[in-house]
């Protein structure tokens, strides 16, 4: 087993090396070199991840301890990398999808200056490094380091075109939202250290019975706050749609391979804690479900191609949290995986479309791209089918597993979840139809410019499309093929502890079939309706009214946050600045100065230079001393 662990550290170190080379040499490297280095390190990391995966598959899991990170009597935190089934799955997703996105980026970002190009790849590598560190970390602190690194990189990449103020604001928003969540995570770590004195996953999970219910609930809720920030759940989800400000491959990376899955990973990793805190599970499920629905409704009316995808990501993440909340950890991880495939595919496809449209992102100006971009069209269609949950595409299996588990927990969850799935199908095919079907609605110049993207972009699309089609087949439900759910069997050791406690409501096979049929049928209905309605879409001049307008404005959540959080904070800050700072603190400081000034000016009058006065004062002084000495 040792040979595996001699190599594991290379997986995060390679992207770090790529980051350093590209970052430091950005002024000297040519674009080709930067691209090769940036993609190459990820590719090698992917190969290593494959090796690790097969090694893990043979039951080879362990924690590699490299050096002591913090070593004080009360607390010992090692720089540990943990390799187990969950980690190896995430390693494959991150490096695999990440590699495809890197390759895609070499073409997509080709118009940038060489310096910016190399900078872009260095950020991308740093992003992958942080995410790998996150999933490899053997304790919460290492995880947190990766967690913070991911937040930083998202800031850097969303604000990559930093000359645009709006993009900078989006980057800042992402960073601040993440910080709010990170605070929760940090508090949870402190709580753990306080109660258990360790942050090692193995020690924490082994000693979990020592924690009181209150502690577990508190810790898990705080961890979940961290997850809502990172994985864009209510109430901290608004940064993710704004994160579209970054280059499209970055969006793909954030949405598919890295960043947003961090929250899922962390909760899946801490599954035993969550299983022991039913209150938190309910909270997670409800938050996930409401996020799924809310984001789906918003996505119905968005016209920006990337915004639709962004809200669909938020919605899909909501499903994953629903899965975590109802104890379907495998389902959640499964959905992370399939989602990584089709969401990366969709984003890259959207990037390809935007590339062809010379930066145009408004779907109302697209249409009929089918005949110009055959590969993009086909792969995009596959991605849409996958996310809509149509069998036998990947999304069907994972989503169905989550919904099945939700039904087992509470049929209401299932009902709402299916409604969300319907909306998913609807808005995805609205997107598809508006973009690829019908007549072209853009300007003539744009029409002349339309072209299929270069191979560096289409090949990743094809690979991802294949994965989006077959990716679900590793988790075929038990009722179709006995032993078909290979992923569950693979991940079982990780979730064994949690699953042992969970009360499993086994569904009858009939029920399960029925649920599948219902969800697929409803999704198909929504799909066909959207196809029909939007394939002949014409630009509507009139403004949306009523609910449509509310949806178009994203339920006014940004405005709501602005009104209930930002504005009061700002007014408090103004108040503090004007009153407390200027009058209180400044007043105190200046007051001391003024008092000294004033009193010294008064006392100075005593220093008249008149010898007589001095003598008089001297005599008075002597007098006082006499009186004190003699009578007091």
């Amino acid at each position: 087993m040792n040979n595996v662990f001699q190599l594991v550290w290379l997986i995060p170190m390679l992207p770090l090396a790529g980051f350093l080379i590209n970052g430091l040499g950005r002024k000297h490297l040519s674009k080709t070199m930067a691209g090769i280095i940036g993609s190459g390190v990820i590719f090698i990391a992917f190969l290593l991840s494959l090796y690790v995966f097969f090694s893990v598959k043979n039951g080879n899991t362990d924690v590699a301890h490299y050096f002591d990170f913090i070593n004080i009597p009360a607390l010992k935190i090692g720089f540990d990398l943990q390799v187990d089934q969950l980690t190896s799955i995430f390693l494959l997703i991150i490096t695999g999808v990440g590699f495809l996105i890197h390759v895609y980026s070499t073409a997509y970002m080709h118009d940038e200056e060489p310096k910016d190009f190399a900078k872009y790849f260095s950020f991308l590598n740093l992003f992958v490094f942080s995410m790998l560190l996150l999933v490899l970390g053997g304790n919460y602190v290492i995880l947190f380091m990766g967690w913070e690194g991911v937040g930083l990189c998202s800031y850097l990449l969303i604000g990559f075109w930093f000359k645009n103020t709006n993009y900078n604001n989006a980057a800042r928003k992402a960073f601040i939202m993440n910080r709010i969540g990170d605070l929760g995570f940090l508090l949870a770590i402190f709580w753990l250290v306080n109660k258990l004195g360790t942050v090692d996953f193995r020690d924490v999970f082994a000693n979990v019975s020592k924690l009181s219910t209150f502690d577990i609930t508190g810790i898990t809720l705080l961890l979940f706050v961290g997850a809502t920030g990172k994985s864009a759940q209510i109430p901290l989800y608004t940064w993710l749609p704004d994160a579209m400000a970054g280059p499209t491959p970055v969006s793909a990376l954030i949405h598919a391979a890295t960043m947003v899955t961090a929250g899922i990973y962390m909760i899946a990793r801490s599954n035993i804690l969550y299983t022991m805190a039913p209150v938190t599970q309910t909270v997670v499920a409800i938050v996930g479900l409401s996020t799924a629905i809310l984001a789906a409704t918003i996505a119905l009316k968005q016209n920006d191609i990337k915004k639709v995808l962004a809200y669909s990501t938020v919605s899909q993440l909501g499903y994953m949290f629903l899965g975590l909340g109802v104890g379907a950890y495998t389902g959640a991880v499964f959905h992370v995986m399939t989602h990584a495939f089709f969401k990366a595919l969709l984003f890259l496809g959207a990037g390809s479309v935007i590339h062809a449209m010379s930066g145009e992102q408004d779907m109302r100006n697209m249409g009929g791209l089918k005949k110009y971009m055959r590969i993009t069209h086909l792969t995009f269609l596959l991605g849409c089918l996958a996310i809509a949950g149509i069998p036998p595409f990947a999304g069907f299996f994972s989503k169905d597993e989550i919904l099945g588990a939700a039904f087992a927990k509470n049929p209401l969850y299932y009902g709402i979840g299916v409604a969300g799935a319907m909306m998913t199908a609807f808005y995805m095919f609205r997107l598809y139809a508006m973009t690829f079907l019908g007549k072209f609605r853009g300007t003539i110049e744009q029409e002349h410019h339309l072209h299929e993207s270069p191979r560096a972009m289409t090949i990743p699309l094809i690979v991802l499309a294949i994965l989006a089609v077959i990716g679900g087949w590793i988790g075929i439900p038990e009722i179709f093929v006995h032993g078909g759910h290979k992923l569950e069997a693979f991940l079982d050791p990780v979730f064994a502890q949690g699953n042992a406690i969970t009360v499993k409501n086994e569904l009858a096979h009939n029920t399960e079939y029925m649920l599948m049929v219902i969800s697929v049928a409803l999704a198909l209905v929504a799909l066909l309706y959207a196809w029909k309605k939007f394939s002949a879409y014409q630009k509507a001049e009139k403004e949306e009214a009523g609910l449509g307008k509310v949806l178009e404005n994203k339920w006014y959540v940004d405005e709501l946050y602005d009104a209930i959080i930002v504005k009061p904070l700002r007014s408090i800050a103004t108040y503090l600045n004007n009153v407390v700072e200027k009058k209180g603190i400044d007043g105190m400081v200046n007051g001391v100065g003024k008092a000294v000034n004033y009193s010294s000016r008064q006392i100075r009058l005593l220093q008249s230079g008149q010898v007589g006065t001095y003598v008089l004062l001297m005599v008075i002084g002597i007098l006082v001393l006499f009186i004190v000495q003699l009578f007091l």
Partner: protein
Amino acid sequence: MEIRYYISLAVALFCIGIIGVLTRRNAIIIFMCVELMLNAVNLLLVAFSKMHAATAMGKAFPGMVSDAQIFVFFIMVVAAAEVSVGLAIIVMMYRNTHSTDVNFLNRLKN
């Protein structure tokens, strides 16, 4: 005579000297008041020496009595030296300012 009369006399002279210093502006008068205060102290010393001379202790140690008077002698010596220097300063000051007003000497202020 009881010692209290002598002490009272010396204190009275001393305080007259102080009042003089405080109320007058002429440097020479102030200087004279200082001399008056010195003399008050001298008188007190002599009176105390004679008080001790009447006691048994004074008779046993005659040096104790004459010491005080030697002290007075030295005070006079120092006073004489002080006066010579002090008057020289006043004269110099008068030559510069054509006044002996101490308030002219408020250069200390700056």
